[in-house]
């Protein structure tokens, strides 16, 4: 995707700590007002990338543009960014109001302007009653709101979030997630958000950048990443419960067929990437648990198979059933009211169009 006037543009960014290469010639363009989520397992370089954009880490190579201005050598305060940290990072000895105004006071903003901006931020985040309290007298959710407020009063172009919800409990996390989404809709600022939580990524992002080992694996809309992952890592990282992978062979003929121990799945409806379906080779067949139908619904599917139930995992809203297909363990989802027991004979089916096929050697999508 080419972006005409990127809000943030990262060009050939590299970062080495001694001999360890953390980020490798990384390129990323973020459009004006876009919500980008950097997603990946811990140690993938996503927080490091964010710190580089903020100017808190010196980069080894490349350039960073914010709002068309080359900020590669600029101090963090001059980059037009506001940052929200995982541990809130509120100054413990200052009241909420002083926390919010610290940056403005350092910059020498006039008093009435400071008061105006704090009033606005407090109104947006609904923290007016807390202004005279110390951070130690706030709950986790309130602290994170104040931390967002501190970025808000700086009147910046780009918001950077470094795993802002990871320290909160599940209930608060989902509440604040919605608030951040509303905030983005109201402010229409560019936001770059780092997380390892795929739910946050899927719900918040306009586009997700899935990272591993300092390299962006895939940068796309959440639905595209979910439905058409470019490689096996992305496929396995997104989705909970995780995608099922079956080892087997791709055979070409009139219609390409995936063959594993005792099953053969016709791939006539599968959309190959480029000429991926032309050559026979060992491959991995991926299918998400929620795309496998069961019972009567399975009959209508292009591919069906008989199997027996191995394990049943009730999860409340639905139930995860483990069974065997092609000699390999797979899981699929059924409604919670379906009563299945270990050893029951069942019929399952799926539409190969919803599957993902990966090269067994390169792990790339076919």
């Amino acid at each position, binding site marked *: 995707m080419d972006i005409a006037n990127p809000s943030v543009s990262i060009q050939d960014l590299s970062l080495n700590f001694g001999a360890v290469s953390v980020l490798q010639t990384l390129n990323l363009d973020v459009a004006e007002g876009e919500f980008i989520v950097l997603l990946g397992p811990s140690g993938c370089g996503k927080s490091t990338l964010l710190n580089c954009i*903020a100017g808190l880490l010196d980069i080894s190579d490349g350039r960073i543009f914010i709002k068309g201005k080359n900020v590669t050598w600029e101090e963090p*305060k001059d980059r037009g960014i506001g940052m929200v940290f995982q541990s809130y990072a509120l100054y413990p000895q200052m009241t909420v109001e002083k926390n919010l105004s610290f*940056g403005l006071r350092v910059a020498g903003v006039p008093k009435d302007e400071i008061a105006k901006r704090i009033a606005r931020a407090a109104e947006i985040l609904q923290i007016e009653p807390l202004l005279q309290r110390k951070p130690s007298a706030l709950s986790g959710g309130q602290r994170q709101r104040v931390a967002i407020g501190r970025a808000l009063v700086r009147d910046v172009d780009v918001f950077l979030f470094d795993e802002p919800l990871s320290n909160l409990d599940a209930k608060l996390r989902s509440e604040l997630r919605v608030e951040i989404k509303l905030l983005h809709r109201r402010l229409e600022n560019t936001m770059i958000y780092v997380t390892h939580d795929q739910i946050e990524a899927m719900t918040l992002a306009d586009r997700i950048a899935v990272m591993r080992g300092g390299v962006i694996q895939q940068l796309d809309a959440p639905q595209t990443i979910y439905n058409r992952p470019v490689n096996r890592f992305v496929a396995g990282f997104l989705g909970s419960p995780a995608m099922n992978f079956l080892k087997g062979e791709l055979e070409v003929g009139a219609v390409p067929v995936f063959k594993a121990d005792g099953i053969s799945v016709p791939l006539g409806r599968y959309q190959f990437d480029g000429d991926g379906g032309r050559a026979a080779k060992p491959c991995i067949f991926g299918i998400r648990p929620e795309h496998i139908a069961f019972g009567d619904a399975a009959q209508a599917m292009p591919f069906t198979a008989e199997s027996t139930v191995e394990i049943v995992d009730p999860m409340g809203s639905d139930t995860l059933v483990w069974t065997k297909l092609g000699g390999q363990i797979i899981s699929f989802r059924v409604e919670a009211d379906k009563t299945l027991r270990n050893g029951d004979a069942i019929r399952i089916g799926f539409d190969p169009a919803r599957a993902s096929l990966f090269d067994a050697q390169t792990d790339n999508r076919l």
Partner: protein
Amino acid sequence: MADVASLSPGAEALRRGAAGPSGPKPRHVLSRRNIFLYGTLIVVALYYLLPLYVMIVTSLKGMPEIRLGNIFSPPMEITFEPWVKAWATACTGLNCDGLSRGFWNSVRITVPSVLLSIAIASVNGYALANWRFKGADTFFIILIVGAFIPYQVMIYPIVIILREIGIYGTLTGLVIVHSIFGMPILTLLFRNYFTSMPEELFRAARVDGAGFWGIYLRIMLPMSLPIFVVAIILQVTGIWNDFLFGVVYTRPDTYPMTVQLNNIVNSVQGVKEYNVNMAATILTGLVPLIVYFVSGKLFVRGIAAGAVKG
């Protein structure tokens, strides 16, 4: 409740304790454990307090009473004469104005040394912990190694350096020496404290636009009172109690209190005035003693700070 009890008649009896222990376990005041524990504590406390008792008692006696030789007996006639003499008129060398001269010398040595060394070391520690400049680790290692070199090795070279600068024998020279020798341990103390503070706080302050001094003065300083108290206690007691540097780097009329005390106690001519010596010793030890009493709680808190998160 009544319904439940009537349903199972046995439950009430069970709840009343007929069926074994319930609630907090009873503790006996005179258990073997307590006797052993408090006995040991009392013996150890006596062992440490006895010398102090002897000193105070002796300092309040007149010389005739001391000659009787009962060092543990309380004074029959309390006199403050020895204290006055120790403070104001005891002779050391040519001067006969007692410890007061040494006291004020020590104050003039300790106050600037403590302030200077802590001011420099805290900035050192802050820079080493938060602004990882190139060669920071090497610098830190060199500084720490400095703490392991015996003082004696450096005494003579420092004499020459001070003489060349022209401040040998002055209080300024001694203040500089104390500040330098306090540097390794204080820098280590501050560096470790600042390292234990959340790094994100420092980053947030940088995003907010605060610079090196802004972050130090407005963010770090207000958060580090406990470690400053620890540093002040370490330095005040260390510098006040110092004898070696005092005797080497000053002249008789600028001797600190400890050196003067030694000269009073060890003077060879005349009668040994034990009561004056005891009073002088207590007077000299009073400053560190007061520092500990006043700040004991803060001291422990500062030492323990950083051990727990948040």
